[in-house]
C-alpha cells in the first residue's frame, strides 16, 4: 500500500469530499427515473472515477475494484442503457456506503471483503448487456507492451466500453522521480489534471521495472503507469502529458492479451512482493519503505498478529503488504479489526476570504498592541485609551471571525436524512416525502456533530411510529404519501430545528397507560395530567412507545437519551402533537458552545453565571413583600408568579455556602452571623437593637456603617430571583445579587471537580477572577434528592400545573368605592371608562344623570344598592360605563381603575350581598365582585320586564334544558342563576366526563350544551368532539364558555365542532346566543 502519508491523506480527504454529495445526487437520480439528468449522473460518475483513479495508484485494490464496478453501472446509466430504478439505486447507495467505509478504514481496506457489493453491481451491469457480451464484465485481460512488459488485470468490459465511445487508449508511464517529484507535482494532481482531457482506466506503480540498486547503469526510475482513454490522437499526447514520447504507448487491439486473463475472482494482481526487499527505492514515495526487511516467512507465526494487537496503527503502517499477505495466508480467519485504522485527522474547510480576514485582524491586533505598549510606556493616557478601544473592537471582530470558521451549514447533516427516510420507508413499506428547509443555517461544528444522533433518532421515530402505512392513511382520508418536514431556522439568537410529520400523532391515553404500566407514574398522577403533559411522558427515562421493539427505532434507547443529549448542548426540546394529525418536535440550540451569554449572579463573595438559555426572567421581591409573596409548602418555599407556583431554590443553601467575609486586615475568613438571605440586614439590625453583644470589632464597625445607611440596606434586602428552566424543571433560583448579563467563555474545570455536578464549567471574569457556571438542570436534580424521585417531582409539577390550568382566569377591572373598599367587575361587560366634572352631574327625580354623547347617562353608585360608604366628594368623578339591555349606565367609582388578569378564586359566601356576587383577594386586598346585572335589576327593575315575561312564557310552554359543564363552582352558580332567571332549566356537571355521562343518560331531555373549555378529566374540546362524533348527540349545539378566547383556541374549537364561543361573564350575549340556537325569541 502507498505509504506517503500526506498524499494518502489528501486522497482520502478528496475522495470523502467526492462522496459527500453523492447520496443526494443518487436520490435525485432515482427520483428523476427515466428522465435522466446527465449532469447529476456525470457528477456521481466522476466521483466514482476519481476515487478509482487514485486507488489504483495507492495500491488500494479493494477500493479500486469497488469504485470500478460502481463506475460501470453509472456509465451505463449515463449512456441510458440502464434505467435507474430504486433497486439499482439501492445497490449503488450501498456500494458507495461501503466505499466510504473503506476510505475511513484505509489501512485495513484491502482486507475487507466487498464481494457481495461487487456481485450485485456486476449483475446489474450484466443484465443490461446482450448475452454475448455479458461475460466481459468479469473478464480481466493483461496489456502486453511491445517490450514485453505487461499491465495486468484490466477489465475487458472497460476497454470495450471506451473503444465503443471512440476513444484511444494509451498507457502513459510517468516516472515518479523525474516527472512528478522533480517537477514539484504530486501524483494526485497529475491524475486530476489527466482527468480533464480524458478518462483514467487504471493506474498502478510498476514495481517490476523499478531499477535495482545494483544496476548501476540504469538510473533509478519508478514508473507510474496510467492507462488512459481519450479522444486525443497519439501525436498530440506528448504535449499533453508533458513526458517523452517513448513513455507513451498507444494500446492496439493486438496488445490485449487474453491469455493471462482470468476472472476477477482469482487473486487480484497486486504488486508482487518478490522484488520488494530489493526495491528499496531512494524516495519515500516508493510504496515500500526500506524497513521492509525480508519477511520471515513462517518463522514466527505469532509475531505479526501480536504487533497488530499492541499497536494497531503502527503495525498497519509499517508492516509491508507482503507481511500482511503472509499473515493472511497463515491465518485467514484473522478478524479484521475495523478500528485498526489511523483515523483521518479531522480537518475543516475554511473559506479563504475568512482566513484573510483573520490574518488582517491579527495584523491589526499586533499594531494596536504596539500602540498600547507605547502609550503605557510614555504614560500617555489618551493614546492608551485609544488603543484599548481599538483592541476592544478588534477582539470582538476576531472572536466573530474565528467563530465563523467553526460554523458549518446544517445541510451537512440534514442531507443524509433523505437517505435515512428513503431506506427506512422502503423497509417499512411506507411512502414518505422528506422536505428539508433551511439547509443554509449554520451551526458550530461541535454542536452539529453532537445533534446528528439525536436527530437521526427523531427522524427514525417519525418514520417508524409517526407516519402510518399508505393503507392506514387512505382509510383516515389522508394522502397515502406521508410527509416529514425538517426545518432549520434562526430565531432569537438560537437555531431552531423542527421535525414535523403528518402521521398518527401521539395518543396521550396510550402514552400515559404505557407510563403507568412501566411504573413511571401512578394512575392518580395520570388522571391529573393534561394531554400535553401525558405526551411529554415519552421524554421520561425508561419509556418507549413502540409496543414491540423494532430494529428501526425501538432499540432500548428512548427519547430520554435524545433529551439528555440535546440538553447537554444547552438546547431545549419540545413536543406538540395532535392525535391523528401529526407531531411537531422542536429543538432549540445555541449557535455555539464556546461562548455563551450568561446572567451573572452572586452569592456571598462568589459570582455564579447562569446561562441565558436557561434564564426566563429576573424577579425581585421588595423586602416588605417577601412575607406575603413567598409561601411555604412543607419545607419548600414557593412564590406565586402570575398565578403560577414557582418553587424556589436557595442557591446559597443548595451549595452549602457558608456566609463568610474576609477580614481586610488579617485576611482571615470569618463566619458571617447572618442566618438567612431574606432577613439578613434587618435581622442584624434587630440583634443590634436588642443589645446583644457583638463579638468581633470588625463586625461592630460594619454594623455601625449599616445603621448609618439603614434605609438603603432595607431596599437591598429584597429577594433576587432568577427564574430558570431546564427540561421539565422550572424554578426560581434565589441569589444574593443579580449583576450584568455578559458573554462568557466556557472553560473546563479540573478533574478533581468532576463530581461537582452543580457546575457546567468555569469562566474568567473581566477582573481576572474565576466564576463558576451553574448547571441549571443538575441543580434541580440535586434539590430533588432530598425530596422526591424524578418522576414523582414531574408528576407533582404536572399536577400543580393541571390545578393551575383548571383554575379560571378572567380579565377584571378593579376600582375602589371609598378609599378602603375594593371592587372588581368583569372587564368584558365594561364599555368605557370616563372622567366627568362633578359639576356636570344633574339630579332629576332622584336619579343622577350626566349629558353624555348626546343622551343622558344614568349614574349610580354602589352605596345605593348595598351597605357601602358613599363616594368621597371630588371635583372630578370617574365613571365606568356598562352596557346592559342596549342601554348604557354609569357606575361612579374612586380610582385607581386598573385592568388585570386574575385567577377566579371566589369566595361566594362570606361577603355576599346584593349586587355583590362574592369576594376574592386581588393584590392583597379583599375585593368584592360587583354583579352589575343584579345592581341594575335592583335599581331599575323595569329594564328586565321583558325577560321576566319571556321566562314566564317559557316556563309555561315547556322548559328548555341546558346541560352546563363547568368546574369552577363560582361560575357554575353564576351562569346557572342567570340561565334559570331566563326560564331555562339547567343540568350541572363539574367536568366534561360527568357531563358526558349525564348526556348519555338524559339525551332526550337536553336541548343544548354549554361547556367550559378548561376542565379536569375531560376538557371542553374533548367533550365537544365526543358529542359531535356520535350521531346520537351530534344534533346538539355546543356553546363554549371561555374566560379568554384566543384565536388559536377558537380555531381549535371550530375544528372539533364547537358552534359558538362566548365569554363567561357576558351574560347578555350568552343568553342571546342560547335563544338564537334554540329558536326562541
Amino acid at each position, binding site marked *: 500500500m502507498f505509504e506517503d502519508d500526506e498524499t494518502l491523506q489528501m486522497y482520502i480527504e478528496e475522495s470523502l469530499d467526492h462522496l459527500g454529495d453523492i447520496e443526494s445526487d443518487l436520490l435525485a437520480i432515482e427520483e428523476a427515473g427515466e428522465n435522466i439528468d446527465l449532469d447529476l449522473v456525470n457528477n456521481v460518475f466522476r466521483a466514482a472515477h476519481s476515487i478509482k483513479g487514485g486507488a489504483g495508484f495507492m495500491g488500494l485494490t479493494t477500493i479500486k475494484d469497488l469504485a470500478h464496478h460502481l463506475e460501470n453501472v453509472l456509465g451505463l446509466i449515463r449512456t441510458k442503457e440502464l434505467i435507474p430504478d430504486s433497486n439499482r439505486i439501492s445497490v449503488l447507495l450501498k456500494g458507495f456506503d461501503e466505499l466510504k467505509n473503506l476510505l475511513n478504514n484505509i489501512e485495513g481496506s484491502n482486507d475487507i471483503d466487498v464481494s457481495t457489493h461487487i456481485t450485485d453491481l456486476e449483475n446489474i451491469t450484466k443484465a443490461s448487456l446482450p448475452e454475448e457480451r455479458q461475460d466481459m464484465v468479469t473478464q480481466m485481460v493483461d496489456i502486453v507492451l511491445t517490450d514485453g512488459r505487461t499491465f495486468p488485470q484490466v477489465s475487458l468490459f472497460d476497454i470495450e466500453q471506451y473503444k465503443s465511445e471512440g476513444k484511444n487508449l494509451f498507457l502513459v508511464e510517468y516516472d515518479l522521480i523525474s516527472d512528478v517529484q522533480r517537477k514539484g507535482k504530486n501524483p494526485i494532481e497529475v491524475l486530476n489534471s489527466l482527468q480533464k482531457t480524458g478518462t483514467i482506466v487504471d493506474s498502478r506503480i510498476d514495481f517490476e521495472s523499478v531499477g535495482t540498486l545494483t544496476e548501476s547503469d540504469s538510473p533509478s526510475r519508478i514508473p507510474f503507469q496510467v492507462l488512459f482513454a481519450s479522444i486525443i490522437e497519439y501525436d498530440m499526447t506528448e504535449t499533453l502529458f508533458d513526458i517523452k514520447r517513448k513513455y507513451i504507448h498507444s494500446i492496439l487491439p493486438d496488445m490485449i492479451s487474453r491469455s493471462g486473463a482470468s476472472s476477477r475472482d482469482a487473486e487480484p494482481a497486486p504488486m508482487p512482493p518478490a522484488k520488494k526487499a530489493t526495491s528499496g527505492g531512494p524516495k519515500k514515495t516508493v510504496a515500500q519503505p526500506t524497513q521492509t526487511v525480508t519477511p520471515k516467512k513462517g518463522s514466527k507465526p505469532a509475531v505479526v498478529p501480536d504487533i497488530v494487537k499492541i499497536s494497531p496503527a503502527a503495525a498497519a503502517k509499517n508492516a509491508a503488504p507482503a507481511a500482511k499477505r503472509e499473515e493472511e495466508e497463515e491465518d485467514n480467519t484473522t478478524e479484521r479489526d475495523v478500528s485498526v485504522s489511523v483515523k483521518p485527522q479531522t480537518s475543516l474547510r475554511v473559506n479563504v476570504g475568512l482566513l484573510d480576514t483573520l490574518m488582517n485582524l491579527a495584523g491589526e491586533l499586533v499594531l494596536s498592541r504596539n500602540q498600547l505598549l507605547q502609550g503605557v510606556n510614555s504614560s500617555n493616557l489618551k493614546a492608551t485609551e485609544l488603543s484599548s478601544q481599538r483592541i476592544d473592537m478588534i477582539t470582538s471582530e476576531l472572536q466573530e471571525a474565528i467563530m465563523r470558521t467553526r460554523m458549518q451549514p446544517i445541510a451537512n447533516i440534514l442531507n443524509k436524512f433523505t437517505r435515512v427516510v428513503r431506506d427506512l420507508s422502503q423497509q417499512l413499506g411506507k411512502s414518505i416525502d422528506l422536505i428539508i428547509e433551511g439547509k443554509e443555517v449554520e451551526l458550530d461544528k461541535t454542536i452539529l456533530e453532537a445533534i446528528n444522533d439525536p436527530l437521526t433518532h427523531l427522524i427514525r421515530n417519525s418514520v417508524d411510529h409517526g407516519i402510518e402505512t399508505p393503507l392506514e392513511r387512505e382509510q383516515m382520508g389522508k394522502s397515502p404519501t406521508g410527509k416529514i418536514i425538517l426545518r432549520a431556522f434562526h430565531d432569537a439568537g438560537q437555531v431552531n430545528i423542527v421535525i414535523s410529520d403528518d402521521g398518527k400523532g401521539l395518543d396521550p391515553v396510550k402514552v400515559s397507560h404505557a407510563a403507568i404500566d412501566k411504573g413511571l407514574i401512578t394512575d392518580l398522577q395520570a388522571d391529573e395530567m393534561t394531554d400535553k403533559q401525558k405526551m411529554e411522558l415519552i421524554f421520561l427515562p425508561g419509556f418507549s412507545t413502540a409496543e414491540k421493539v423494532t430494529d428501526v427505532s425501538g432499540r432500548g434507547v428512548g427519547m430520554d437519551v435524545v433529551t439528555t443529549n440535546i440538553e447537554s448542548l444547552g438546547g431545549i426540546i419540545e413536543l406538540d402533537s395532535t392525535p391523528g394529525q401529526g407531531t411537531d418536535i422542536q429543538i432549540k440550540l445555541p449557535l455555539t458552545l464556546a461562548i455563551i451569554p450568561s446572567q451573572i449572579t452572586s452569592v456571598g463573595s462568589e459570582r455564579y453565571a447562569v446561562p441565558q438559555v436557561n434564564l426566563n426572567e429576573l424577579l425581585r421581591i421588595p423586602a416588605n413583600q417577601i412575607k406575603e409573596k413567598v409561601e411555604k409548602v412543607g419545607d419548600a418555599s414557593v412564590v406565586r408568579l402570575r398565578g403560577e407556583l414557582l418553587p424556589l431554590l436557595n442557591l446559597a443553601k443548595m451549595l452549602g455556602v457558608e456566609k463568610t467575609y474576609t477580614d481586610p486586615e488579617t485576611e482571615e475568613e470569618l463566619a458571617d452571623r447572618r442566618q438567612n438571605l431574606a432577613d439578613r440586614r434587618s435581622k442584624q439590625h434587630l440583634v443590634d437593637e436588642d443589645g446583644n453583644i457583638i463579638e468581633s470589632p470588625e463586625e461592630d464597625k460594619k454594623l455601625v456603617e449599616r445603621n448609618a445607611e439603614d434605609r438603603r440596606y432595607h431596599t437591598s434586602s429584597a429577594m433576587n430571583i432568577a427564574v430558570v428552566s431546564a427540561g421539565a424543571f422550572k424554578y426560581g433560583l434565589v441569589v444574593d445579587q443579580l449583576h450584568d448579563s455578559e458573554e462568557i467563555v466556557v472553560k473546563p474545570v479540573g*478533574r478533581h471537580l468532576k463530581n461537582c455536578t452543580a457546575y457546567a464549567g468555569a469562566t*474568567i471574569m473581566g477582573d481576572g*477572577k474565576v466564576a463558576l457556571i451553574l448547571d441549571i438542570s443538575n441543580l434541580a436534580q440535586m434539590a430533588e434528592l432530598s425530596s422526591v424521585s424524578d418522576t414523582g417531582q414531574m408528576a407533582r409539577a404536572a399536577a400543580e400545573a393541571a390545578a393551575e390550568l383548571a383554575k379560571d382566569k378572567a380579565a377584571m377591572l378593579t376600582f375602589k368605592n371609598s378609599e378602603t373598599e375594593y371592587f372588581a367587575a368583569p372587564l368584558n361587560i365594561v364599555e368605557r371608562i370616563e372622567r366627568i366634572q362633578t359639576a356636570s352631574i344633574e339630579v332629576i327625580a332622584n336619579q343622577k344623570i350626566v349629558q353624555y354623547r348626546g343622551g343622558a347617562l344614568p349614574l349610580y353608585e354602589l352605596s345605593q344598592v348595598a351597605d357601602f360608604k358613599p363616594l368621597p366628594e371630588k371635583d372630578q368623578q370617574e365613571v365606568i360605563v356598562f352596557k346592559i339591555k342596549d342601554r348604557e349606565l354609569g357606575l361612579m367609582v374612586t380610582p385607581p381603575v386598573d385592568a388585570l388578569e386574575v385567577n377566579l378564586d371566589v369566595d361566594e359566601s362570606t361577603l355576599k350581598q346584593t349586587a355583590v356576587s362574592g369576594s376574592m383577594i386581588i393584590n392583597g386586598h379583599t375585593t368584592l365582585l360587583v354583579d352589575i346585572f343584579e345592581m341594575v335589576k335592583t335599581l331599575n327593575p323595569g329594564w328586565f320586564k321583558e325577560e321576566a315575561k319571556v321566562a314566564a312564557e317559557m316556563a309555561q310552554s315547556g322548559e328548555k334544558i341546558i346541560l352546563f359543564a363547568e368546574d369552577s363552582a363560582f361560575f357554575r352558580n353564576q351562569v346557572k342563576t342567570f340561565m334559570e332567571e331566563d326560564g331555562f332549566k339547567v343540568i350541572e356537571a363539574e367536568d366534561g366526563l360527568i357531563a358526558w355521562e349525564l348526556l348519555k343518560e338524559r339525551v332526550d331531555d337536553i336541548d343544548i350544551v354549554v361547556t367550559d373549555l378548561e376542565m379536569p378529566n375531560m376538557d371542553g374540546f374533548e367533550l365537544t368532539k365526543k358529542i359531535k362524533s356520535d350521531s346520537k348527540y351530534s344534533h346538539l349545539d355546543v356553546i363554549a364558555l371561555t374566560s379568554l378566547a384566543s384565536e388559536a383556541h377558537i380555531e381549535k374549537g371550530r375544528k372539533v365542532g364547537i358552534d359558538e364561543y362566548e365569554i363567561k361573564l357576558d351574560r347578555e350575549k350568552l343568553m342571546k346566543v342560547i335563544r338564537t340556537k334554540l329558536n326562541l325569541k
Partner: protein
Amino acid sequence: MANKTVDNSSEDIEFSTFYVGGALCGIDILNIQEINKHTEITKVPQSHDYIKGILNLRGRIVTIIDLGKKLGLAPVNNDKYNRNIIVNSEDEHIGLLVDSISDVALAKRNEIEPAPSNMSGIKSKFFQGVLKTETQLIGILNIDEVLKE
C-alpha cells in the same frame, strides 16, 4: 509529569521543599511548572474539603488543593507565606497550596529511604520515601497519589 521510575539510582534529583502542616515535604523539581502566590481563589462549594478552589492562571482554570488537608495534616493557614505550587498532571495544571516554600535539596535517588514504618495509614501512601539531610527529614511526595481524585 509523573515520578520518574528510572532505575538509575545514582542520578541526581533536585527536590523543591516546602512546609505543609508543620512537616517538611519535597517534590521532584521537574514536576513543578511554577510557584506563585495567588490569593484570588474562587471557592467551589460542594467539592471535596481539600479543594481550596479554582483560580485563573493566565487564562487556564487551575484547581487548587489544600495540601495540608489532602495529606491529613493541619489545613494550610491563610497567611502571607502561602504559595501555590503548580504541577502539571494529565494535561492539566493543578495547584498545591502549601504553608511556605523552603530550599531546593539535591540528592541521589538511592539516598531516598522508604517511608518509616510508623508512618502508616492513609498518610503513608502519599509518600515515596524520606530524604535525610544533615539537619532535617524531608518527606518526598508521590505526586500521582496526591493528585488522585
